[in-house]
């Protein structure tokens, strides 16, 4: 098992370096002089030269890339052009909000998606199947910002049950988490349904029934575990999706998370900030994938043997 985990970690390293390289190249071909961006249009030319010097902007590209990688490995993403603060500090401040939002959203998507998928599979091709799947899939087709605004209108403005925007307590996270979680509940439901249906066609299900188990014991005890193993893997993709969705959700609900600072960095053309947030997010997505693989290996006894 340990070997398997180590192997998976090693595989992720080149991926991260690749992403860093692509980012570096992309951000270096974006037009605009960083110093002008930082100091405003009317800065004096001699000051520009001074700042360029201080920021090593005139060093050869390879050296800059090497420095950037080494610094990034130590968690140093440079200083924000805009705020003049360490990018890593800004990320460290924003990240917990995003984690909280994503975590609640994953819970919501499972709480909606898994039971819907089970109900739909057990009552395959009936009204119940369609109703549950319709409800879960609705979240996929509603744009997050639109659903967010609608939710704010109904639950905050009309009914006054929940606060509109902010991040001060759990109550503030309810609407954003449901909106964001619902948006990926459909994927979870669809996957649960199709995996469960497939799982129920296995020969060992017939064995379980022949043993005398009740239908619910067969579904929950024998079919579900097999069916949910792939769902867990999709959790990784889901984290990537949710991080994407979190950008929108954070903007609508005024949560100062990673999404918000990335959007702001784009608006400000704040390159170190953007590099830092994107690279950090990539690392998180890769870590999510890794975690999913490990959970998968843990759930499925056949995996560890193959990884031997």
């Amino acid at each position, binding site marked *: 098992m340990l070997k398997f985990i180590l192997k998976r970690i090693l595989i992720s390293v080149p991926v991260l370096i690749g992403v860093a390289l692509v980012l570096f190249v992309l951000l270096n071909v974006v037009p605009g002089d960083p110093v002008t961006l930082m100091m405003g249009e009317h800065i004096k030319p001699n000051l520009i030269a001074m700042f360029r010097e201080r920021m090593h902007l005139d060093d050869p590209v390879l050296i800059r890339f090497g420095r950037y990688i080494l610094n990034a490995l130590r968690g140093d993403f440079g200083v924000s052009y805009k705020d003049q603060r360490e990018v890593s500090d800004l990320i460290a401040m924003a990240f917990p909000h995003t984690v909280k939002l994503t975590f609640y959203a994953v819970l919501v998507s499972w709480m909606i998606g898994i039971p819907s998928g089970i109900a739909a599979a057990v009552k395959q091709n009936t009204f119940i199947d369609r109703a549950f799947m319709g409800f879960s899939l609705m979240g996929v087709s509603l744009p997050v910002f639109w659903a967010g605004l609608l939710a704010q209108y109904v639950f905050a403005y009309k009914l006054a049950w929940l606060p509109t925007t902010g991040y001060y307590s759990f109550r503030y996270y309810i609407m954003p988490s449901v909106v964001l979680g619902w948006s990926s509940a459909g994927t979870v439901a669809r996957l649960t349904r199709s995996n469960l249906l497939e799982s129920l066609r296995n*020969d*060992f299900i017939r*064995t*379980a029934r*022949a*043993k*005398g188990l*009740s239908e619910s014991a067969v579904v929950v005890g024998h079919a579900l575990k097999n069916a949910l193993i792939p769902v867990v893997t999709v959790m990784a993709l889901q984290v990537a999706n949710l991080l994407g969705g979190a950008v929108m959700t954070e903007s609508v609900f005024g949560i100062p998370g990673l999404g918000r600072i990335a959007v702001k960095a784009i608006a400000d053309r704040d390159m170190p900030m953007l590099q830092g947030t994107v690279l950090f997010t990539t690392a998180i997505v890769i870590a999510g994938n890794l975690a999913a693989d490990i959970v998968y290996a843990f759930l499925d006894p056949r995996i560890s*043997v193959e990884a031997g």
Partner: protein
Amino acid sequence: MLEIERLCTHFFTSRGVAPAVDNVTITIPPKSIVGVVGESGCGKSVTALSVLRLVSSPGRIVSGSIRLDGEELLTKSGPAMRAIRGDRISMIFQEPMTSLNPVYTVGRQVSEAITLHTNAARGEARGRTVEMFRAVGIPEPERRFKSYPHQLSGGLRQRVMIAMAMACRPEVLIADEPTTALDVTTEAQILHLMKELETAFGTSIMLITHNLGLVAEMCDYVYVMYAGRIMEQADVFELFDNALHPYTTGLLGAIPRPGGERRRLFNIEGMVPSLLDLPKGCRFSPRCGRAISRCHEEEPELRGVCRGHAVRCFLYKNESGAAR
């Protein structure tokens, strides 16, 4: 004693109704091994699944009666039927590779059957499982308890299936081609084991196979099935000495001889007819080398030719058993 009487199980497909089991009567007396033979697709598995009432949609038991010690099973409630499955009637399947759940240990899967049907606690069920593993000849039963199916060979998995099926000492064990997927040596061991268990536990066995050689070795009585119908039935000695139905003699001609190369399992010309498009008259007539004109017009009845021997063929008319 298990009595299947005039059982009809049909599949209601979009292309029509397939009478997979059509008016089948089979009796499994106590302490005996009864064989059901026939080519694949002739309704053996559906008959077996009907007994446990596990035929899945679009299949449905249409009519007939299935009695265990005189108790009708077809009218039992869901929970009452579940109490019988795995406890009084159990079943093992052809595919030892896929019949066990890959994500649970084999020990857990067997003890599940024990805790379900007895009020044994976990620890006790565990002990009984290990005991059962030992009884079916699994080496190092304590260690094997914690094995996952993929860690065991096909033969061992089938032993686990047998342990699971026998765990509650059922009155009837239905073995649906239990050795088809195994190599010859393992097959012999598994058959030997089943015979031993039959003697030790007094369990009757319904042995489903397409291999008449296996029937000769194991069974007391045989039913020959074709296209959902019983074509011939007899005491095992009677059948091998005096097979009457052209289909049975065809099957007998196809038995692989020990030492000789394995021939094609069936050397009867042609294919099993589609159940959706059955031939008029005798269901075997398109493939029968001895068919007479009447065979293409009406279907013969299953009639007794001598004690315990019945055949569904126009060539045999009365109790004398003589051909026309």
